[in-house]
């Protein structure tokens, strides 16, 4: 920790869905930054750990009218009545008033998974296995982030390792505040299309605040009233519609595999009755 106490910020993101090419660089940069272990072969899309996960959504229409878009989902850093923070029995989830970042403390987590049941974005992940790396690869772990043990929950924390580094640098420079852009999460830095903008939503001058105010921006499940800090932007009406539609949607179940979900086996997924 650093001695400085910077002026409170409210960090958030604006993701431009019209720029996202679904390459997955954000997911990969995130996993590298945060020492997410390569999965066991047994791990499925439902048990794997992807702090950031790019879903593909579609307008549900058939060829050639079909349209698809990519939508990266990470912890939405809810700013009000944060569902996961309220339910944790032992304060392993805390919202940092100085940054507005919802932080998960694995070393205090009991592994009851109540927070996962509480999260509407499925942005929390449980360590079902002991973490393992191929021989030698553990030497490439990021020294700024501790590895997690089996049986605890983890999630995106806007790369707080990077926040600490940035603060330390600022403190070394005798500064109490961080310059905009001095601290950006790994996914933001890695996005080849520069689709993710990160910054202080409370700073009206910041680009992210400007995009958040943009008429084409929206947030997921806004009506839940949890004030998420991840904004999505698109000029394509159908994308906005698909991101806010009632379920079960017209979306055909065939997109399941593309949406990052397992192929049905036995009593796997059921088709929506109204589909």
């Amino acid at each position, binding site marked *: 920790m650093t001695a400085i106490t910077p002026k409170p910020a409210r960090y958030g993101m604006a993701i431009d869905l*019209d*720029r996202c*090419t*679904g*390459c*997955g*660089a954000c*997911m*990969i*940069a995130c*996993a*590298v930054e945060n*020492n*997410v272990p*390569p*999965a066991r072969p047994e791990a499925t*899309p439902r048990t794997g*750990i*992807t702090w950031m*996960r*790019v879903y*593909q959504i*579609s307008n*549900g229409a*058939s*060829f*050639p009218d*079909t349209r*698809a878009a990519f939508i990266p989902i990470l912890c939405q850093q809810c700013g009000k009545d944060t569902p996961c923070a309220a339910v944790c029995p032992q304060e392993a989830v805390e919202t940092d008033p100085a940054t507005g970042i919802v932080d998960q403390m694995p070393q205090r987590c009991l592994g009851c998974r109540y927070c996962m049941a509480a999260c509407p974005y499925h942005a929390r992940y449980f360590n079902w296995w*002991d973490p393992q*790396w*191929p021989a030698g*690869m553990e*030497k*490439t*772990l*990021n*020294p*700024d*982030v*501790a*590895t997690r*043990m*089996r049986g605890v929950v983890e999630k995106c924390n806007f790369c707080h390792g990077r926040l600490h580094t940035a603060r330390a640098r600022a403190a070394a420079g005798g500064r109490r505040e961080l310059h905009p852009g001095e601290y950006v999460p*790994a996914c933001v*830095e*890695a996005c*080849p*299309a*520069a689709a993710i903008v990160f910054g202080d939503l409370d700073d009206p001058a910041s680009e992210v605040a400007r995009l958040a105010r943009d008429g084409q921006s929206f947030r997921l499940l806004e009506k839940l009233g949890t004030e998420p800090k991840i904004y999505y932007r698109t000029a394509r009406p159908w994308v906005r519609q698909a991101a806010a539609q009632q379920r079960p949607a017209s979306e*055909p*179940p*065939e*997109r399941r*595999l*593309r*949406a*990052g*979900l397992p192929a049905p086996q036995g009593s*796997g997924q059921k088709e929506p009755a109204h589909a």
Partner: protein
Amino acid sequence: MGFTRRDLLTFTGGSAAGLMFTPVPWSLLRDTAVLSENWPGVPQPLHGEIRTRYSTCTLCPAGCGVRARCVGDRPVSLAGVSGHPASRGVLCPTGLVGHHLAFCRDRAAEPLANGRPVAIERALAGVSAAIAACGARESVAILDPRPGRAASLVYRRFLAGLPSGVHCAPPNAEPYGAFGIDLENTRAILSFGAPVLDGWLSPGRVLANRSHFQLIQVEPAYSRTASLADLWVPVLPGSEDGFAAAVARALEGETSDTHATEVARILLRNKPAIAVGGGAAVATLNAKLGSVGRPGGFLPRRDFTPVTGIASVPDRSIGVLLIEETAGGEPLPWDLLRRKLIPQDSVVVALTPWLDGCARHADYVIPAPMYLESLDEAPTPAGSTVAGFSLSPALLTAPPKLTPPAEFVLRLAHDSATYPDILKQRVAAIKKDGRGTVFTYPDAKSARVRDIPDLWKAMLGGAVWLDEPLHSGTVRGADLQVCAGPPGPALPPTPEYPLLLIAADNPPPHGSPLMSKLYRESGLRRPANAATVHPKTGRDQGLEDGARAIVTSPSGKFPVQVIFDAAVMPGAIEVVGQAISPASIRRA
């Protein structure tokens, strides 16, 4: 005054109660916490001085600059070099985790002869013997995935010394021949199935200019590029050339089908425009668009030396084939290669870091260093309008028993020089010509070659040399040769093969275990064994979503997992990395 049982009980009880007021039980509690926090067997990251080192990515022809965050001298994460002329500070997903490749399974660790480990000398002897045994009619060929490198020069020299040596490249190694694409100034790209937004040329450069050009994707599959293009024109597989011709006519003002007219309108409104991908008709279309040799179009480079495409090598002519495979593991068309070999007595040598590629068909496997394990070179970045060159210094310490492909060929040629020597000569040559500029990674600055005292050192520190542009007018060589796009018109479906097999995605590259995990768990890239069909087509074939099935085509059969996706053209089967051909699919 004896010691009764009562006394004992009192004592025990008392001490138990007293213990509660000592720190002992509480510290024991804490210890359980400590235990559960450092769960046995969980590796903790190593700490050390954080340093930044630079290199250049050789996994694909894009030639992106790499900034490595290192603990001590060990890279822990890779990122782009901001301002890099080719990559514009961007790395693709594969490049981001290039430093993990060294830890993949399926690595070639030691020389193999017919699957058995041998000393490198034995392998050398064996291969030389095989080469010596080749008569004038039996040619010795080296398949060079990246012509235009210093290594390629080594190959050419060696082959020149043989009675019949062939220096050949896999299909599409040089898509635009002597030409680069002036992305910075083009206003419209008419793409015939080229993955423009999905790893085409240097992704960073393409995306940086994305806002400047209209993108029209002509492709039967609703690919990533199609989904992000300004206009997607779904055409029947194999009818691209026809559509190109239609557009050409529409440009002339002739009335054509609505799509073509629409496309023509966009191209005319956004000039300069280019057409990429596709076949001969696309070349003529470019000529019509006047995009050859003009700013915003195809511009010629100085460094081009033509190389035989493997396809044009006569069948059953190669006696000894040396195949260089890159760490990126671009797939090689083995069926094509096999046809070129002399049936019985041909020798195949795989110079590769991988065991699961061409090594599977090779008599000799010469393990090559993995990306970032040894000093390497990156030739002119794909699609660059000027010649370029950069070194890829090693960031990892390589295991023993590895031989860089060029090194192996040098030793075959009994040349005392080492690969680094060759690279030094190349750099010296650049310095001698004194043309062009050098962009150095650490300070993100460009300087003229003349002004750099020690070019070699600068290059080792991370730098890319860029030639001066040619005068756009003077086009050396013939007119633009555009790569052979999707092979000719597809055969019409037959009763035996009612469906059409079309390429969906590039096959998943050799990647970090982490990358493959993330792709698998997010389903972002279709698994290599996925066959995506329209739900209706699938049901007509008696399949359901997720079923296991067998796809049969004239070139053979392979098992797949069926994915229903309404985005797929009815009557088509999208399969990762397949050529267009009629096919049938049935339940496994």
